[in-house]
């Protein structure tokens, strides 16, 4: 690859106490890509997210961002440099207003004209968020909360958004909206790294994907290749059910 990837994992090993979670994991996230990470429960997907954000540190291996090694970099500095999270189950600050949640998203950014511009961008992407801006975020529906969570990530002026289960617990209508929005954001030049149970949906918008099993990358390729892979069909696509929410 001629261009430096935006984010790269090389030989990453992560532990929780004695538990070896990620085992020699390699990922590459190129500029402008949507990458989908597939895998069952407790396979290391959330640990991957936390390792990217610097909340969990890799014991061995290197994490490179924009060509620089960032293993020892504090989470706040990673956010400042453009890595923003959309956390599993939204994780908004429930007793803060929608507006305040968006402000928290811009925590590492200077306040001023740029902030106003960014918040207008979020409002135009999600008019519903604008309507709800003075409401406590804990009073919003799951779908509305997900919009705020994505908007909050955008407020950090990210180059890379890491999403943990963005469709979890949402009605089919909102799942559609969330995936459309992810594509819109991606077209504006933001790379997306997405952990997602809904493999069907994820692979329909992703450029490439990785399959993680018990902390090991067992398969990787373009979304097309993964969709046609027999193992993926059986393990992830075949069992697709949209659970009632």
């Amino acid at each position: 690859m001629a261009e430096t990837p935006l984010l790269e994992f090389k030989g990453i090993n992560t532990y929780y106490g004695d538990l070896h979670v990620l085992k020699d994991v390699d990922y590459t996230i190129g500029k402008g890509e949507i990458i989908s990470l597939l895998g069952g429960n407790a396979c290391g997907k959330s640990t991957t997210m936390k390792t990217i954000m610097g909340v969990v540190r890799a014991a061995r291996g290197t994490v490179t961002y924009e060509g620089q090694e960032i293993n020892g970099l504090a989470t706040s500095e990673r956010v400042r440099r453009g890595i923003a999270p959309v956390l599993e189950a939204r994780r908004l600050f429930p007793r803060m207003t929608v507006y305040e949640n968006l402000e928290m998203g811009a925590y590492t950014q200077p306040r001023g004209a740029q902030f106003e511009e960014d918040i207008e961008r979020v409002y135009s992407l999600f008019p519903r968020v604008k309507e709800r801006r003075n409401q406590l975020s804990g009073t919003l529906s799951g779908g509305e909360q997900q919009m705020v969570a994505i908007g909050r990530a955008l407020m950090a002026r990210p180059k890379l958004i890491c999403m943990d289960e963005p469709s979890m617990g949402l009605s089919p209508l909102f799942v559609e909206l969330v995936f459309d929005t992810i594509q819109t954001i991606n077209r504006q030049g933001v790379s997306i790294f997405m952990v997602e149970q809904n493999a069907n949906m994820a692979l329909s918008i992703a450029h490439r994907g990785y399959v993680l099993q018990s902390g090991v990358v067992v398969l990787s390729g373009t979304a097309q290749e993964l969709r046609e892979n027999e193992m993926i069909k059986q393990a992830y696509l075949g069992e697709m059910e949209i659970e009632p929410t």
Partner: protein
Amino acid sequence: MTAGDLFLQQAINGLSLGAMYSLLALGFTLVYGIMELINFSHFNVFMVGAMIAMLTLQAFGLHGQETILTGLPLIGVLLVAFIVAMTVCGFIGVAIERFLLRPLRSVKGPAAMITTIGVSYILFNVVLLTIGTDSKNFPNPLPPITWEIGGAVLRLREILIWVIALVLMGGLTYFVTYTKLGKAMRATAQDPEAARMMGVEVDQVVMSAFFLGSALAGASGMIFGLYYNLAKVDIGFASGLRAFTAAVLGGIGNVPGAMLGGVLIGLIESASGQLVGTAWSDVVIFGILVLVLVFRPAGLLGRLAPNKS
């Protein structure tokens, strides 16, 4: 005095006590809200605050109640004493956090809480050995101005305590509601990991909570001195325990809850002192606490913590 006058008088006294407990309760609630730590060193940071305020007033040549100041000198001296007590206590709180509690941050279990008990005893003994164990006469330069409301007496001292408490609580409310750091504190209290992933630096937030809480304890210590005209090495335990009770009563971790809880404890203390005698006031205070916790375990304004997954 009629029954109504007595009631009014006890309400006036109770509000002053309540102001003192509220300011002290805020320190427990700020630290608990962010770290889920019960900071027992807060008891004696309060006592140190009373001592520092006393020493500052003495440095102005004030001893006991014989010297009366008015006008600008009065305001200036009181202001300086409050600021010195609050600043010194604030930095004591920051030092406790930075050097003794931060190394234990990742240690699970009661280690940090036990450390705060240890620090409390260290502060107690340092004051015991330097200032002494006897009750000190706390300088009070306020002129003896009083107003009669029916049969009840309202002193200038009361007005001063209320104004100071309102200004400080208003300032704190403004800080946590509108400033960037205040919002980061609320966010951290609600979801520390998510706050961290927004770019909030947890160390900065924890240090701010300790500074603010301890500074308010310093102000509370000075109010104790002005209210009782004394300062003594063992005042931290009784007042601290009541303030902690106030924080739990209002809902620990909840800022308005601590203010409300403090005022209620102050009013209950003075009312029960009147109705059943001061010897029984602790029984009444803690009895009410137990009842509230049985029927509203999260406190009056608190919410039960949601299960974190």
